[in-house]
């Protein structure tokens, strides 16, 4: 069967500016593979990002994009989704963007359960600002901003945070396995509700600890080990395995998914009339509206 959109249809003319070997290439490829597999119309697809190396991603695709300010991709995406719920909205960004400066929006977007897919390219370091500690940097990691003792704070665990905040699709992927990542992204897009895919995406320039090899030696597939992703308790148990409990084994795959929770769009009263972007402007019967002021 001939597909309407080729892989290349989704590519823009702009070439990625990432360092050779950057994990973000794999995330771009996984996303492109997923939207190609779903044959999404590029003009009905909106990709919103913040600031950071990974947030340049929308420029490399031929869809609509909004390259927002640092940490604010999620609220921009939420506003767009509420204005036109028929758009497929995907948010991309880094760990600093989403788990640091934007962590407040991250929690609130998840508790609202917007039908939005969020890909975080998590490299556990600030790349674009040349190598400072990030909210997911491991304890003890020496960086430009933590040169003496290394990081002395605990890292944010996005998976536990997502589970606790009400995300209804929570997964972790790894740039060393594009095929599985593409599958997780595809399922996340199809999921009716908020999908977080935390993508471990090594920074080859500034993070010499959490490298491709670091992950390859430690990752395992949750689904292959029989994890039940409909069980929230089991999901929490798996979530805290790394980095809280130990750092020898790192679970990948789908931690949790439920379709039983209505999305924000399902419940918002103003959307019952249809997408706001297509509603008539103005007030038909102003006298009725003015009566309460008389």
């Amino acid at each position, binding site marked *: 069967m001939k597909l309407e959109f080729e892989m290349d249809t989704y590519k823009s003319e*702009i070439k990625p*500016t990432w360092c050779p070997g950057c994990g973000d290439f794999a995330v771009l490829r996984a996303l492109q593979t997923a939207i190609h597999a779903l044959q999404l*119309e*590029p*003009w*009905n697809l*909106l990709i*919103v990002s913040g*600031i950071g190396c990974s947030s*340049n991603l*929308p*420029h490399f695709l*031929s*869809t*609509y*994009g*909004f*390259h*927002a*300010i640092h940490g*604010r991709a999620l*609220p*921009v*995406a*939420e*506003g*767009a*989704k*509420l*204005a*036109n719920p*028929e*758009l497929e909205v995907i948010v991309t960004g880094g760990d600093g963007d989403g788990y640091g400066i934007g962590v*407040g*929006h991250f*929690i*609130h977007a998840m508790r609202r359960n917007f039908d939005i897919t969020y890909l975080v390219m998590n490299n556990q370091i600030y790349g674009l600002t040349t190598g400072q500690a990030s909210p997911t940097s491991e304890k003890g990691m020496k960086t430009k901003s933590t040169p003496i003792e290394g990081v002395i704070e605990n890292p944010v665990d996005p998976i536990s945070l997502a589970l606790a905040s009400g995300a209804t699709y929570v997964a972790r992927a790894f740039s060393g396995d594009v095929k599985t990542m593409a599958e997780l992204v595809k399922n996340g897009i199809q999921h009716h509700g908020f999908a977080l895919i935390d993508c471990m995406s090594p920074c080859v320039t500034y993070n010499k600890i959490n490298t491709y090899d670091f992950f390859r030696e430690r990752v395992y597939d949750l689904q292959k080990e029989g994890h039940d992703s409909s069980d929230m308790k089991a999901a929490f148990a798996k979530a805290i395995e790394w980095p809280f409990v130990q750092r020898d084994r790192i679970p990948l795959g789908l931690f949790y998914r439920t379709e039983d929770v209505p999305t924000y769009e399902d419940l*918002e*009263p*103003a*959307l*019952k*009339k249809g997408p*706001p*972007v297509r*509603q*008539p*402007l*103005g*007030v038909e019967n*102003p006298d009725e*509206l*003015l009566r309460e*002021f*008389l």
Partner: protein
Amino acid sequence: MAKNDLVFRIGGAAGDGVSSTAESFAKMSARSGLHTWTYSSYQSVIRGGHVWTQIRGSLGPVLSHGVDPDVVVALNQQSMDVHQGDVVEGGAIVYDTDGTKPDPAKLRRNVRLIGIPLRKKAQTLSPNALMRNTVALGAVVKLFDIDFRHVESAFKDIWGDKKPEIVQQNIAAAKLGAEAVGQMGGSLNLGLPYSNEAKYLMTGNEAICLGALAAGVKFLAQYPMTPASSILHWMASHGPKYGVVVKQVEDELAAMNMTVGAGFAGVRAMTATSGGGFCLMVEAIGQAGMTETPLVAVLVQRSGPSTGLPTKTEQGDLNLALGAGQGDWPRAILAPRNPEECFRQAAQAFNLAEIYQTPIILISDLYLGEGYRTVEKLDFNVPIVRGMMAADGGTAKDFMRYRITESGVSPRALPGMKGFQHVAATDEHMENSELISDVLAGLPEHVEERRKMHAKRMRKLDGLRKDTPPPELWGPKNADLTLLIWGSTWGPAHEAIIQVDETEGVKVNSLEFPTIFPFHAEQTEQLLRGAKQTLAVEGNYTGQFTRLLRAETGHKADRFYGKSDGEPFTWRDIADHILEAVA
């Protein structure tokens, strides 16, 4: 001179029902056919403290909440202490004989003391004496000879058809108060001929909501903050019926960013806040300027700095609005003077935002935003102009979102439009949205690209200057003094001008600015040419507008009267400064 207005003030503790009583009275005044104006002085507390509201009703157009009241209701001793000396000669004070005492030494002449056992009378109707304030209200209605049917209709508005027994109880309570006055000398006999033709009564914030609805707003994101919260409240209860998504968000950063997202997706979108919240919005509003995203931001000022006086008025955030965001980006700042203008400018702001694809700021303040005023019937038949869209002209093939044009405005395309895909970028970019910032900045041809793109955006100011309302000169041409004013100062300033003319024969006019930015320098210079002496009057310490005026025109106001004590200008404040200037 025959008296043509009434002024009523009620004071008590928060939780005593001061504001609901005052609101009811304002409605009764408007329904009696009086032009009506209210000012509420309240505090950042839910119970206790001292709150008071003043309502002024007038046979002719009313321009301020007035000064000294004809009648004061003192629901506690503090209210008595604070307000008893303000009551005019021949006026009256209504108070609870149970625990409140006037001090005759502090009163003006012939002030009637109407002590009523308010609590005890209310207890005859319900044991918790909740309707103490209603008994007092009934007394006031009698003192002013207001038709009792307005009492009934006001109570029905509050409790509706669902609780008829509460409506009846309150009517009974009001009658007890009226009867008590009947037994203590009766009404004030002001002789105001009420027409009983109801007038529309609303706050500036409500007028902004109505203007936004008329213009087709479809999205409001807001975080609660006094004195802007009533915009969120009104829209939350009315918006969905008109297809407006109303979102209370986690903070003002989200409010502005969601508004940007909604504007980008193609709906008319707005947010509203006060100074502190606007501070959190500045990075994101600059983002809208850079990405050329239309939106309307309402800034209802209160006293700063920092948390300041949350329930008090000021005009101290003008510099904030003028300077919001890093770098230069085109914006317009409109400053409504009254509710009618709140309505008109809100509607116009959405057109300007979409025509010029940039944020428009509507700057108001607590005095205008929360005060009730009667207005003429609002005309919802406002023009709706959505600006240049891609499908109007070019084809998808040669579409570039940020095409350089003479006007600075490029054709806009909305997500969902096939073939017009593009990325809106907060980094500096080229016509096709490709970033200059990453690998091109500093290369000679891209230095030029940046210069051209920046100039393109800023050229929008020329169009905005043409399309925004120009400054207006109000009052006699050959005046001895010209006031320089903006925003809510309009009412008290006009009343002061009328008063000094009537009482002292002093001729004063006022130059006022419905648009603050882009500044209309040429017209301003023309209008100032005939001015003999100028007095700038604004509600802040440093003269934020006065300095802007000087920067834009070179005109240094001869005198400056800045007020930043939290209270609104009264006409008397301004009249005193006028007389000092012309002495």
